[in-house]
C-alpha cells in the first residue's frame, strides 16, 4: 500500500466521511495537527464541549415522532462531535428499528441514546444491551418469545444481520438462538427489560457446535467471538467510512484488530481512519451520498443557522430515508440505490429551498472579482469539487455571459443560483 499523503484533499476526505463535511477552519487545523492528531481529536469527542447544541435541542418535543426526527437531524447538523453522530447513524442502520412498528417515542429515544453511548464502545456489550432494549424487543417480537412455541424473529435476525451474516450459521443455530432468548421480555408497568424465568427454555441447546443450557447473553458472546462476525462488522464499517468492496486481506486485517481488542468499535474505527486504503484513490469521492448525508452535509457546508428540520422531513420522506423509519431490519441500501430521477429532483429542489429561503454564510464571503473567480471560490468552498471544463464554463456563463460580475440584487440572485447549481451537480451527490 502507498504511504498516506496528508494534504488538504486527504483531510477534506476524512472530514466528509467521519464528520458529515468540512469547513475551512477544520482543514487548517487538520493540516496543523497531522493525520493521527486529527483522527484522535475526532475520536476523543467526549472532551468536546457541546453545550450550544444542548441548548438548541431543548426546544424539540421528544414525545412526538416529528420532534424526535428533528432532534436527531439537528444533532447531526450542529454537533461539534460529528464522529459520535456518524457512528450512531451507522449503528441505527445496523440495528435498524422502525418507529412504524414500535410506536413509542420514549423507547425509540432510549435506543438512540444506547447506540450513542456505544458509538465507540464494545460491540458485544452493545448487542447484549440491544437484546434487552424495549424498542428492539417490540420491533422483532422477542417480548413474545416463549419456550412452548418460540417466536423466531429476533433470534434469526440477530445471527443473519447483527452478528454473523448470511451463510455463516445453520437452521439448528437459529433454533438454539431463539430458544436461548425465550423469556427476554418487557415489563409494561416499569417500561424496562424483564427476564421471565417461567418463559425461558432451560433445556440443552447446541449453538455453533457448543452444547449447554445457553441463554441470550451466551449466544451473543459466542457469535461475537467468531471470525465471521469480525469480518461482517469490519467490512460493513469500512464500506460505510471508506469504499465499497474492500479487499478481503484488508477486511481480515481489520477484523483481526477488532476481535483482538474484544470487539472494540474504537479500535476498528481508528484502524480504518488511519489505513492507507481509506485514503486511496479507490476511496476518495467514491461514495454516493445517502439522502440524510446529502441533507446534513449541505446544511453544515452552507453554515445555515436556521432550523430547517421542518421541511427536511418531506425531502427525506420522498427519498425514502427518514431517521427512525428504516424500511426493514436490514436497514437502508447504499451507493447507486440512492440515485434515480425522483431522488435527484428531490435533492435539487431541497438545494433550491435552502439557497433561496435561508442566507447561507458562504454567500457573505464576496471576495471574487470575475465570474471565473466566483465559480472557483464556491466550488472550493462547497466541495472542493473537481468538475469538467465544460461544466465550469456553464457555471461561469450562468453567472454572466459578458464576463463581468453583475452588481447589487442581481449578484445576490446569481450567487444563490450558483450555489443551487453546484449543489445540484452530479459531483455534489458524491462524497
Amino acid at each position, binding site marked *: 500500500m502507498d504511504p498516506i499523503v496528508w494534504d488538504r484533499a486527504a483531510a477534506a476526505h476524512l472530514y466528509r466521511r467521519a464528520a458529515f463535511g468540512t469547513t475551512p477552519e477544520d482543514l487548517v487545523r487538520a493540516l496543523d495537527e497531522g493525520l493521527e492528531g486529527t483522527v484522535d481529536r475526532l475520536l476523543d469527542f467526549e472532551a468536546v464541549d457541546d453545550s450550544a447544541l444542548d441548548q438548541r435541542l431543548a426546544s424539540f418535543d421528544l414525545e412526538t415522532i416529528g420532534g424526535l426526527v428533528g432532534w436527531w437531524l439537528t444533532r447531526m447538523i450542529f454537533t461539534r462531535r460529528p464522529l459520535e453522530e456518524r457512528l450512531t447513524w451507522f449503528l441505527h442502520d445496523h440495528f435498524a428499528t422502525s418507529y412504524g412498528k414500535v410506536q413509542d417515542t420514549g423507547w425509540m429515544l432510549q435506543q438512540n441514546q444506547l447506540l450513542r453511548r456505544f458509538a465507540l464502545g464494545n460491540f458485544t456489550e452493545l448487542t447484549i444491551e440491544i437484546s434487552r432494549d424495549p424498542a428492539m424487543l417490540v420491533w*422483532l*417480537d422477542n417480548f*413474545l418469545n*416463549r419456550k*412452548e*412455541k*418460540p*417466536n*423466531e*424473529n429476533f433470534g*434469526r435476525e440477530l445471527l*443473519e*444481520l447483527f452478528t454473523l451474516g*448470511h451463510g455463516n450459521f445453520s*437452521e439448528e443455530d437459529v433454533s438454539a438462538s431463539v430458544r436461548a432468548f425465550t423469556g427476554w421480555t418487557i415489563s409494561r408497568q416499569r417500561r424496562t427489560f424483564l427476564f421471565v424465568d417461567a418463559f425461558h427454555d432451560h433445556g440443552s441447546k447446541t449453538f455453533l457446535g457448543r452444547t449447554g443450557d445457553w441463554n441470550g447473553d451466551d449466544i451473543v458472546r459466542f457469535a461475537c467471538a467468531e471470525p465471521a462476525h469480525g469480518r461482517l462488522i469490519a467490512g460493513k464499517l469500512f464500506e460505510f467510512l471508506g469504499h465499497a468492496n474492500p479487499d478481503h486481506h484488508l477486511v481480515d486485517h481489520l477484523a483481526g484488530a477488532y476481535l483482538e481488542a474484544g470487539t472494540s468499535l474504537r479500535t476498528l474505527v481508528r484502524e480504518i481512519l488511519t489505513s492507507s486504503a481509506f485514503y486511496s484513490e479507490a476511496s476518495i469521492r*467514491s461514495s454516493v451520498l445517502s439522502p440524510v448525508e446529502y441533507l446534513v452535509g449541505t446544511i453544515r457546508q452552507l453554515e445555515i443557522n436556521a432550523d430547517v428540520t421542518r421541511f427536511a422531513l418531506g425531502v427525506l420522506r*420522498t*427519498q*425514502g*430515508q427518514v431517521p427512525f423509519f428504516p424500511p*426493514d*431490519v*436490514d436497514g437502508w*441500501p447504499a451507493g*447507486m*440505490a*440512492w*440515485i*434515480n*430521477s*425522483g*431522488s*435527484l*429532483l428531490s435533492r*435539487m*429542489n431541497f438545494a*433550491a*429551498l435552502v*439557497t*433561496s429561503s435561508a442566507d447561507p454564510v458562504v454567500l457573505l464571503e464576496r471576495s471574487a472579482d470575475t465570474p471565473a473567480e466566483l465559480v472557483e471560490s464556491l466550488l472550493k468552498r462547497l466541495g472542493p469539487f473537481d*468538475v*469538467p471544463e*465544460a*461544466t465550469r464554463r*456553464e*457555471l461561469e*456563463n*450562468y453567472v454572466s455571459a459578458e464576463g463581468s460580475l453583475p452588481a447589487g440584487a442581481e449578484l445576490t*440572485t*446569481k450567487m*444563490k*443560483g450558483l450555489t*443551487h*447549481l453546484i449543489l*445540484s*451537480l*452530479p*459531483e455534489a*451527490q*458524491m462524497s
Partner: protein
Amino acid sequence: MKANRREFLKIGGAAVTISFLGAREILATSASGQRVVVVVQLAGGNDAINTFIPYTDPRYRSLRPTLAVSDQAILKVDSRMGMHPSLSGVVDLYARGKFAFINNVGFGGLDRSHFHCQDVWQSGFEEGHGHGSGSGGWLGRYADLYLSPAASSITSLAIGSRVPLGLSAGEVIPVALTSAENYDVLTNPLSADDRPEWISAIRSSYAAGGRDGTLDEIRINGESMFQSIDLMATIPSPSVTVTYPQSALGRGLELVARTLHADLGTRLVWVASGGFDTHSTQTGTHANLLSDVSDSLASFQADLESRGISERVVVMAWSEFGRRAQENASGGTDHGKAGSVFLLGDGIKGGSFYGEVPGLDALDDGDLPTQIDFRSVYWTLIESWLGNDPEPVLHGRYANLGFIEKETVGRRRVVRR
C-alpha cells in the same frame, strides 16, 4: 437494436431538443400501445396459507388454532380452495376470469431469509445478483435485451423512492417517482427571470460527458429525470369514477394507470408494498394488508378498463416467501418457504388457480415445499405475454404455466383521444 452506453449518451443529449417538441411528437416516437407488465412486490413474506386457503384440509385448523379463518367467512372458489374474506375485490375479478393465483411458488434454496430470498426473486438467480455477466434484475435484463432505450419514453417505471433490483438494468434507466404532482424543478421563486438560465445551465452540466462510472451513472439518471419531467407533464388526471385505497399501493397504482394512459412507451412497472412480516398478532394486520392489495388491484383494473387500456396490462404480485404452516405462540407466523403469486388482467386466463392445492400433510420442516419455480412465472410472462424468448433473460429453461390468454388483442394500437 441494443444501443451501448456511449450511443445511449448521445441519444440522451438529443433529448434536450426533443423536449421542446409537443407531446404528440414525443408520443409518436415511443413504443406506443404495447403490452405492459406491472410487478407488485409484497415485501416481508405474505402468509400464503391464510391468503389462498386449503379450507377443507383438517390440518388447516389444527395448525392454525387461533389464526384459521372461520369456514363461513372464507370466500370459496372451489371445493378445496378459498380466499381470505379481505379479498372480496379480487374474488369478483376471479369470477369474471381476470384474476388467478398460483400455489406453492418458490425455489429449491429458500432459506427463510428475507434478504436472500428477495435478492433471488429479483435477480432471477439462486446465487443472488452478483451473478457474473448476467447481473441486475430479471426485468432489467429483459429491458436490456428486448427494449431499446428510447430517449423520449419512460420504458421502465418504479413507483417509490428507489429503483428495485428487479428493474435494474445496464442500458435502460428506470424512472422512479413517488408522485406526479410537483414533479418539476424548483428555482428561486424571487427571480423568475433567472429560471431559464438556471435550467439551461443544469441540463448542460448533466449532458457534459467523459467522466468515471459512478458520476456517469448519476448524470444519466439526471438526464432521464429532465426527460421524464417533460413527459410526466402530459399525463391525464386521476379517475373521477374509480376510488383507490389511500395507501402507498393504492396511490402508486393510480399513478401507474395515469402514466400508462398517457402512453409514454412504458412497458415495465414496479410497485412495492410492505408490512407482510407478520410474526405476531397477525389476524387484524393481515386482513388489512390483504384488503389493501385486493382493493388496490380491483381499483386499478376498473381504472384501466374505464381508460380503455386494460387489454394491454397484466399484474403479477409476489412475496419473497410464504410463512410457517404452524402458527407461533404470539398469534403470528414465522418465516416459511413456498408462497403464492397473484395474477390480474384481461390477458390472464383467470377464474382458476395454478399449482396443486397446498399439501399441509407434506410439509418441509414445517413449511410448504416449492412445487413451482418462480422463474416459470417469469418465463410465462416473457414468452406468452411479452412475446420474447425468456432463455437469455433467465439463463435457463423453465415451464410455461399457461396462464396467459391466447386470444387477447393486446398488441392492437390504442386509440388516442
